[in-house]
């Protein structure tokens, strides 16, 4: 009975973790369909390996660890298949040309996709998921110092890619570009 109750609680905790897992997966791979596959595989692995989870420890970190391992092993597999970069990887998997979330984040998703995967993971875990450097390092299986430097490099690179300067936090004026694009060329009647 005790075990069954414990299992029920864990099941509820698993369900409660799904939104975070999906956010993590989407941020990591930038592909909603692939992200949900990653989450599904994570849940199956978590369920069949619940015995290796120690009650009272951080379930979310445990699940994130499983998901990132699934993702990185998938990434390695794809890289072995086609020896090219993230762009081609993403293009191959972008079957329906789906956009992640709202158009508002398109440039951010694109910039994330240009980061080295370990830097992308680092900045998501610490900068978005709210893990401490220590927790993030444990999830990624690296030293804390390595995690800190990955996060810093990722933030710097994202700033560059998004065209963010200290005096211009909103970058190029997207609205201006749109207006310029729809303006008819002079002389066209």
């Amino acid at each position: 009975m005790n075990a069954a109750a414990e299992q029920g609680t864990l099941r509820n905790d698993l369900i409660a973790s799904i939104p975070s897992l999906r956010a993590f997966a989407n941020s990591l791979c930038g592909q909603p369909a692939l992200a949900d596959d990653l989450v599904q595989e994570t849940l199956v692995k978590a369920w069949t390996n619940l015995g290796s989870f120690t009650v009272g420890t951080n379930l979310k970190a445990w699940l994130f660890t499983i998901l990132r391992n699934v993702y990185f092993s998938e990434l390695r597999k794809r890289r072995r298949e086609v020896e090219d970069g993230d762009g081609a990887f993403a293009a191959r998997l972008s079957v329906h040309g789906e956009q992640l979330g709202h158009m508002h984040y398109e440039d951010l998703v694109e910039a994330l996709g240009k980061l080295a995967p370990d830097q992308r993971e680092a900045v998501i875990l610490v900068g978005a998921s709210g893990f401490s450097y220590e927790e993030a390092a444990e999830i990624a299986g690296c030293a804390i110092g390595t995690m800190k430097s990955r996060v810093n490099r990722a933030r710097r690179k994202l700033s560059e890619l998004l065209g963010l300067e200290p005096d211009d936090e909103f970058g190029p004026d997207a609205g201006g570009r749109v207006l310029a694009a729809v303006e008819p060329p002079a002389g066209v009647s």
Partner: protein
Amino acid sequence: MRDPKGFAGRGAGDARGPEQAAGKPRGLDVRFASGADAAVSRRLKEMYDGLVSEPVPDRFLELLNQLDKAETPAVPTSAPGGTAAAGSPGNPAVDGSLPVEKS
């Protein structure tokens, strides 16, 4: 998931220079010290929080229901060398380690 307002505070505290730690007003002034970093962090956090708040597709609940019916998972370890084997005769793979694929 966590307080979005806590993010700016944490961002300023972890790896920023002393400019922000000195208690300068945030908001618009944040751009002077490390505006680009703060903006990146804010956007990332906004996107992530938006993703977290998306509704969960039914497939995941269905999946867990199926898993529930299909097999009884190993009982979680409550203590080292605990009762992990109970109720999981069909799961010899559980060895106390994370289900990590070997690289």
